[in-house]
């Protein structure tokens, strides 16, 4: 009696893959990023570390999608087995699935803390995060392609809200806040780059989702576009915060964009508390991040152990909830975040580089073998 709607196929377009990148990376990291960067840099120098981190991740995104699209429509575990042998591929898949699991738990905690701080004074964190988690679990138990469509739908709204906040805070800008320039020392750049790298993690989903792309030949280029969008977006937000608060102010406000959103007023008393709308939209962005992370983790696990998706969800949801509740206070949460980011950065980068190297060597060898074979047959 209950019917489940089926999409025509389980494939996505390369544009949907492109939007996946901003969807997974833009989440809670960007809210505190400007203040973390401003702590270590002087004036408006923070754009340099953001760009360097951005370039690194653009290269990484290209690398991942390139290696995955060399084996079109093959899931990660099968092409990784071809390149690295089956046991290693299985271990890698589980490690990457863990990354998705950690991101989900961490973001869950952060969004609950944030919502409590700004919106629900008396509601316990546990209740907020449980509500959020239940919606996320519901979302990932349905069709995977549906999630990509949701990404496509939310993305323009998120961009719009940030641009809107940027425009309406224009009379708070002070051009002298951008001075001085190029006065940060090397250590400062290094620390700030580290923080920027940390807030851009999430690319591991590309390992899995590239196999869903219908025609993957353009996919690497689209991945580069997607990651570039994220970098530009981050720089825009950073400059917005510096323009309004100055670097000293930005460094001392925990979530600068939220504070800017609080300042936005439409003249004439039409709108005084814009932050409530901003939060609603931002939770959409965070929802995209969490569903992508959780779903890719399920995808990975399902490729290793052949169980039904719903069983994984029923098992993982309570575990996620308890992991998210482990950190006791703000400092614990921050350490948890650093761990998640570092873990993701290392595992994603290493996997990408190793797979790409082996794949290109293999390709070269086989093409050489082909040419020599052809030569042999000619003679």
């Amino acid at each position, binding site marked *: 009696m209950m019917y489940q709607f089926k999409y025509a196929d389980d494939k996505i377009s390369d544009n949907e893959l492109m939007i996946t990148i901003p969807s997974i990376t833009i989440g809670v990291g960007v809210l505190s990023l400007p203040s973390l960067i401003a702590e270590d840099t002087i004036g408006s120098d923070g754009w340099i570390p953001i760009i360097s981190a951005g370039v690194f991740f653009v290269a990484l995104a290209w690398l991942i999608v390139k290696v995955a699209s060399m084996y079109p429509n093959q899931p990660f575990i099968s092409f990784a087995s071809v390149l690295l042998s089956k046991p290693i591929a299985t271990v890698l898949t589980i490690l990457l699935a863990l990354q998705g699991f950690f991101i989900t738990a961490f973001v869950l905690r952060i969004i609950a803390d944030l919502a409590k701080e700004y919106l629900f*004074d008396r509601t316990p964190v546990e209740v907020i995060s449980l509500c959020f988690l239940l919606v996320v679990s519901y979302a990932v138990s349905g069709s995977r392609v549906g999630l990509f469509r949701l990404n496509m739908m939310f993305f323009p709204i998120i961009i719009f809200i940030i641009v809107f906040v940027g425009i309406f805070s224009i009379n708070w800008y002070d051009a002298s806040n951008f001075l001085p320039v190029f006065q940060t020392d090397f250590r400062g750049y290094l620390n700030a780059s580290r923080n920027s790298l940390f807030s851009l993690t999430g690319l591991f989903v590309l390992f899995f989702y590239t196999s869903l792309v219908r025609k993957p030949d353009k996919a690497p280029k689209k991945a580069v576009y997607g990651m570039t969008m994220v970098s530009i977006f981050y720089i825009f937000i950073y400059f917005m915060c510096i323009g309004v608060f100055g670097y000293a102010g930005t460094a001392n406000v925990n979530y600068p964009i939220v504070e800017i959103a609080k300042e936005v007023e439409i003249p004439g008393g039409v709108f005084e508390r814009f932050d409530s709308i901003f939060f609603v939209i931002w939770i959409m962005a965070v929802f995209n991040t969490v569903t992508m992370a959780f779903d890719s983790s399920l995808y990975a696990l399902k490729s290793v152990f052949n169980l039904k998706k719903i069983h994984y969800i029923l098992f993982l949801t309570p575990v996620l909830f308890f992991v998210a509740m482990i950190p006791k206070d703000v400092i614990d949460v921050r350490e948890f975040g650093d761990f998640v980011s570092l873990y993701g950065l290392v595992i994603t980068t290493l996997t990408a580089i190793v797979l790409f190297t082996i794949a290109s060597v293999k390709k070269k060898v086989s093409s050489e073998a082909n040419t020599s074979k052809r030569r042999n047959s000619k003679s």
Partner: protein
Amino acid sequence: MKKIPIFVLCMVVFLLLTGCWDRTEIEDQGFVVGSAIDLEEENGNDNSFKIKLTNQIVLPGGLGTPLQGGGREQEAYHNITITGNSIFEIIREMATSANERLFFQHMKVVVVSDKVAREPGLFSKVMDVYIRDHEMRRGMRILIAKEGTEAKEILDVLPPGEKVPALYIDSLLENSYKTASSLEPLQVGQLQERMLTKRSYTIPEIQVGDNQTLKYKNAAVFQAPENRMVASLSGEETRGLAFLTEHDQTSPVMVNVDGEDVVIEVLDINHTYDVLSDDKDNLAFEISLNIEGSIAETFGNSKVLKASFFKKLEKETEKKVKEITEKTIKVVQDDLQVDVIQIGDTLFQRHYDLWQKVKDNWDQGENYFSKADIHVTVDVNISKTGASDNFK
């Protein structure tokens, strides 16, 4: 037929599972729109103070238009005053006497008495909660009550036609600073930036005027690291400060040309700061003001639309502005020795290396600022004469 129980189940679930933990009825919200902070007493030597906090709460019932046919005119606000050791403590204490839940998202102004501001360290201590608490908005304005006035009194002044004193102050600040020669209102967010950069600053003062009105003029000078008020600038000195630091100041300047009084309205000021000498013991700076003005009022009867008259007028205005600004510089540099004319900011922004050398002894210790040589050059350009050439 099986669908009906499922439908009923869904409905029951919706009813039971939806809700809001943080629900507050709007009638139970006490909207705080203004705060005043006074010093109650000093506890001698143990360095603690008793603070008196007054919160102004809007009564929404009194805000609407009164009903036809009389009825008692309802007050639109009430003030609650409580004494305690810290602001947050007092706010919580206030909850015991207010029948509403205090709600700070619509705060407009904070008035601090000069006694609080003059105690070392106390000012930054009382301001902390206004920056830290998430309910507070960074856009609210901060004012210092002029010497001799309690901050609490400021929140009681209500001119005819207005309903809530804090809202009256807010519109007063919004509308008057551009036309009068007072400083731009300072927001709490900006105050935090100034405290963080550890450079001295000024906060506008407010005082009670005649006929149930407030006067927004003068400025309190704060010295950087201790965030302590050290002096109050007079009206004329504040005007010089406005010329030196603000861009869209439209204060009038009265000059005398050939025995005729002419009032020049300043439209726009551009500042350029030059470092003439960067030897740290003999620093020399030049502040160039590029002023755009127009003729607002003439008392004589010569035709104003003449090149020679314009030249003279510009010369006279330059002289006058130079006089005003130099007086201010003299006061802040020689008497107060506190840099509120933003030379430190300029050094930080444009001469970072020099700033690194002098920053620890800028307007304290060695006090390079007071030893520096500061020149002002003024260039006035009068572009408009108003609508008419000659009146008489």
